[in-house]
């Protein structure tokens, strides 16, 4: 790129421009608060995952960033402008989950159609190759498999060489290999400064590929950090042991115990101090076969987004 910075913009040192800036954003449908006061700042070049259970407000938040729906309150800026302005400049593109393609066009026609809409677009052949669909260019979209259609949507999103790419459940319907290849492509682009925001149900995907994970619950951000930080927020370990005749009331008195669970002869003590819990169980009770289990990001996710979780605090254990 050879563009020089415009006046008033500080040269490259220090603060990177914000790709997305949400301030106090609210969106409600009737009495349902889909987005309930979200603040969010994405810097250029970050790969950020939005995680949350169904109805947490992931898609509503993405729709607002893309200008597909209007926030009822709050400010939305994408590269410092209104979402629609950013889109019409080809700065932002998105791969949505379903639909969005005309069945009676061919793959190549769909790409040509979309490319013609941008002031400047990438070479069509290159985009088809990058997305891995050059061999099916002449096929009707209606005859393509779900995975092929998804790759076509990805190709469309790359056409404008966007600075921000938004992906809603991007690898749904892809096999493991396809998923890995997809993320390798995304990472390579991000190294060149592209910001990527994706919503996913695959916790391990967020864990493995995102620099930063944002957890949403009931339209609020309940955690925001690296996946290691998220795990630490729901800190603690689970101590499991075999202890016949244990009662939950008594176990709750065990040092470090936060929540306890009895399943048959097994007891599970979710503990903030697993050493103290284990020492107590082994010396003061008849517990045996003791195990100490670290929580994964999945537990952290459940702890932070579960319905019995206190907002923002890691108190409850894995539920069910």
């Amino acid at each position: 790129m050879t563009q020089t910075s415009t006046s008033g913009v500080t040269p490259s040192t220090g603060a990177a421009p914000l790709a997305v800036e949400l301030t106090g954003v609210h969106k409600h449908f009737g009495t349902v608060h889909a987005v309930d006061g979200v603040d969010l700042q994405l810097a250029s070049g970050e790969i950020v995952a939005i995680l949350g259970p169904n109805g947490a407000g992931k898609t509503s938040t993405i729709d607002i960033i893309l200008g597909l729906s209007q926030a009822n309150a709050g400010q939305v800026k994408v590269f410092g402008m209104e979402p629609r302005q950013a889109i019409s400049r080809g700065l932002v593109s998105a791969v949505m989950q379903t639909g969005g393609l005309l069945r009676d066009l061919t793959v190549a026609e769909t790409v040509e159609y979309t490319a013609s809409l941008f002031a400047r677009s990438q070479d069509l052949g290159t985009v088809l190759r990058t997305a891995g669909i050059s061999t099916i260019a002449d096929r009707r979209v209606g005859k393509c498999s779900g995975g092929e259609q998804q790759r076509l949507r990805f190709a469309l999103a790359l056409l404008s060489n966007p600075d921000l790419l938004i992906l809603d459940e991007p690898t749904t319907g892809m096999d493991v290999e396809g998923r890995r290849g997809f993320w390798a492509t995304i990472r390579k682009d991000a190294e060149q400064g592209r910001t990527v925001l994706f919503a996913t149900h695959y916790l391990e995907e967020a864990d493995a590929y995102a620099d930063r994970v944002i957890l949403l619950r009931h339209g609020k951000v309940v955690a925001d950090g690296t996946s290691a930080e998220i795990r630490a927020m729901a800190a603690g370990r689970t101590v499991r042991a075999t202890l016949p005749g244990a009662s939950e009331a008594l176990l709750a008195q065990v040092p470090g115990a936060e929540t306890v669970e009895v399943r048959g002869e097994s007891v599970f003590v979710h503990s903030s101090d697993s050493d103290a819990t284990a020492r107590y169980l082994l010396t003061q009770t008849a517990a045996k076969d003791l195990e100490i289990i670290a929580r994964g990001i999945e537990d952290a996710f459940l702890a932070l987004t579960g319905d019995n979780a206190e907002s923002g605090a890691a108190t409850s254990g894995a539920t069910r």
Partner: protein
Amino acid sequence: MSTPTIAADVAGRRTPALGGFNLTLLKIEIRRLTRNRRTVVIAIVIPVVFFLVFGLGQTYDTQRVGHGNVAAFVMISLALYGAVLATTFGGALVSIERAQGWSRQLRLTPLSPVAYIVIKVLTALVLGAVSVAGVYIAGAVTGKASMSVGLWIGTGFSVWIGSLLFAAFGLFLGYLLPAENVMQLLGLILGLLSFAGGLFIPISQFSHEVQDVLKWTPLYGLNQLVHTPLLGNGVDWTWIVNVLAWLIIFSWGAVWRFRKDTARV
């Protein structure tokens, strides 16, 4: 503001000219239309068949009417029927695009909603032109229709431009109705409106009370106007009021539904 919000390459980005309207879009849209066999058959083949079956072979075909003959009169009526089918269908294709989520996909591109509507209307007009040409070619090849060259061109052009009214109608109903069966429903509605507007039989066949009502149906005014050059009988102001009123109603409806749609999508 302390944070710089414009990156170097952000400043270099431009929006497309004309809200994204371009000839590649038109080319692909027209190619798409030709793939929709049912639309092509209904909008082009049926009016020609109607003309050949019902319009010709009558004893009064060659009877003089105004500056031409009866066959020319019938040809204009059926060309209007075809053009109206074509432009309505062209406009109503938005319902299929909405159902397939394509409208939403387009909101992620620089294409402006107005440019999208312009593309839809132009595509509908191309199909309408082919439909008019089909009936006129049938009229010329069979050698029955007779009027001056100026009238062939003048009436054909009036029919084509007049069908714009129904591009608005198609857009309105395309946004209003669900995609399933919208085409069948429109075919039925247009058949009824064509009867009411006097495209198939003169409305003078009906009683005066019925005629008074039919004169305010959407195709009556347009049908009268496109026959005026042939008949040379002058224009009644109520025909113009009819066309303008329906144009306002259909356009208002299309804009209303379109606004709703873009707010919700």
